[in-house]
């Protein structure tokens, strides 16, 4: 659905002739049909610039990109007709009511049944009762939902969501997130830029981490594993040195730490090897209370990746 080859964007630096600021460099990416792809990165990492290039709003300085089967550049009009975008701010016309806002965009997208499609999404988002009220009187959450409806009016196969829950109170953010989750189950392809790592973890099939360059792309679990490996936490009635020694002796175990009545074991292939660890502990007389997989938060994955990038840049 999306393919980029060495996609690069530089902007002229304001007030300095001949100087350019690098926004995105050499982006190579592939997003499959029906996938929910998360795009993570700090402020100024190039997320919005990438979305704008892929939505044919700005031209890449170098490289190529194909979106929904069309090439960025020669097929820009076709790309804009076939993608939906939720921009960083809702960007709705405050002096117009909800129906007028959606009808306007439906006409621009060439939707054949404007009123039917507008009614469908207003009802779906619970805004039908307030359809004739000026959008300026809507809460931030309602405006965001209306902006999502606007992006969906022409039923695009690919949807770009740029910070969909940014600036919303927790309740509105949850409503918007739940709605996006519902949409994700409909088979559309999503490209989701977010700072909210729980949101990315919950919604995305794969995640790309960017800071001008693409740092890593993987599934959320894949990112955790690549950074921390597999780790199992075993709670015992009492930890004895022979328990630690028995586990350390196993060939597939990389590291064992003990403390607080627990053994933390880093190992390969936990599905196959966990029973062996348990058998080894039982054979030394350990009383096992719980065995559970240690799951690192996506936040720690992200922060560690950023720290690694900073260190690499400094080196």
């Amino acid at each position: 659905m999306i393919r980029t080859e060495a996609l690069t964007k530089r902007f002229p630096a304001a007030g300095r002739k001949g100087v350019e600021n690098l926004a995105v460099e050499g982006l190579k990416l592939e997003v499959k049909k029906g996938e929910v792809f998360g795009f993570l990165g700090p402020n100024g990492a190039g997320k919005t610039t990438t979305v704008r290039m892929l939505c044919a709003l700005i031209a890449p300085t170098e490289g190529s990109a194909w979106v929904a089967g069309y090439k960025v550049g020669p097929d820009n009009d076709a790309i804009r007709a076939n993608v939906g975008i939720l921009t960083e701010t809702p960007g709705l016309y405050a002096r117009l009511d909800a129906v007028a806002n959606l009808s306007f965009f439906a006409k621009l997208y060439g939707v054949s049944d404007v009123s039917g499609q507008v009614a469908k999404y207003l009802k779906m988002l619970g805004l039908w009762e307030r359809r004739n009220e000026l959008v300026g009187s809507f809460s931030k959450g309602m405006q965001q939902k209306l902006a999502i409806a606007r992006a969906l009016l022409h039923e695009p196969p690919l949807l770009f969501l740029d910070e969909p829950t940014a600036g919303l109170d927790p309740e509105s953010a949850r409503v918007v997130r739940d709605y996006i989750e519902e949409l994700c189950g409909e088979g559309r392809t999503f490209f989701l830029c977010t700072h909210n790592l729980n949101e990315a973890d919950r919604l995305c099939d794969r995640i790309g981490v960017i800071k001008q360059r693409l740092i890593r792309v993987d599934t959320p679990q894949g990112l955790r594993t690549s950074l921390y490996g597999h780790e199992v936490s075993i709670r015992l009635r009492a930890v004895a040195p022979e328990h630690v020694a028995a586990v350390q002796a196993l060939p597939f175990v990389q590291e064992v730490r003990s403390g607080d009545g627990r053994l933390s074991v880093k190992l390969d292939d936990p599905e196959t090897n966990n029973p062996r660890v348990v058998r080894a502990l039982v054979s030394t007389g350990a009383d096992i209370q719980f065995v559970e997989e240690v799951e690192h938060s996506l936040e720690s994955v992200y922060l560690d990746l950023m720290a690694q990038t900073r260190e690499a840049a400094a080196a």
Partner: protein
Amino acid sequence: MNVNAASPRSRNGASPFSWHRVWAVIEKEWAESRRNKMILWTMALVPLFLVAMVLGTDYFMIRAEAKGQDMDEDEMPIPEQLQHLPRFEAFIIQMNEQYMFYMFIIPMMLPVYIAAYSIIGEKQTKTLEPLLATPISTWELLAAKTIAATSPAVVLTWISYAVMLVGLRFVVSPTVFFYSARAVWILAMLLLSPLLAFLSVLSGVIVSSRINDPRTAQQITGVFIVPIISVSLVVLAGKVFVSVQMVIYAAMVVLIVDLVALYFAVKVFQRETILTRWK
């Protein structure tokens, strides 16, 4: 996909210039303008003030003359085209010839008011990005914004001129009325009003790329009004009596200025420029 078959698509799925999209933007612009009290008041008051000024001045001058007050008409230089008329009638015609130029303040002032709100307003409310993300082309958007801003002003100019003529019919003598309703002014209203309105909007577009406050953009109308007032003073001084030939020459000059302004407006009104450089 729910995309309109009536909107013809080319080989790569893109639509050519679509009047459906242009009309959608125009409808939206007008709906927003109707809810903007500043625009509505400006649109109502400027023509009203100008028409009232012409009719009021003529009415009080004629009344004062009838009462025997000296209007200093002998001191006003009268062009040779009006020399055959009674001095006071020629004087009133001369005054009205000057006022006719003031009617062009409407197509110069109102479009830039609407355009400033329409473009800078979109910048301020951050509605430009979702709009530019639709299949609308830059030309369609520019055409829609221009038509939406110029057409109400041009129609208001024509209505104001018509109302002024109807008023003059009751206030002045048939001879004086004839001079205000003669072909040269009808031609000027038909030809110059749209051209001046177009120039006003294009200037609004160019200025909007650098300015974030609609009121500042509107202040450029002051610059436009200066040449109009200057020409009107030349007419009042009896140096020039407006002819069809002069109107055609003036229209050609404004057309050339329009084309130059269009070149710059199109240059600044590009998606990437708007999104990344309009701050």
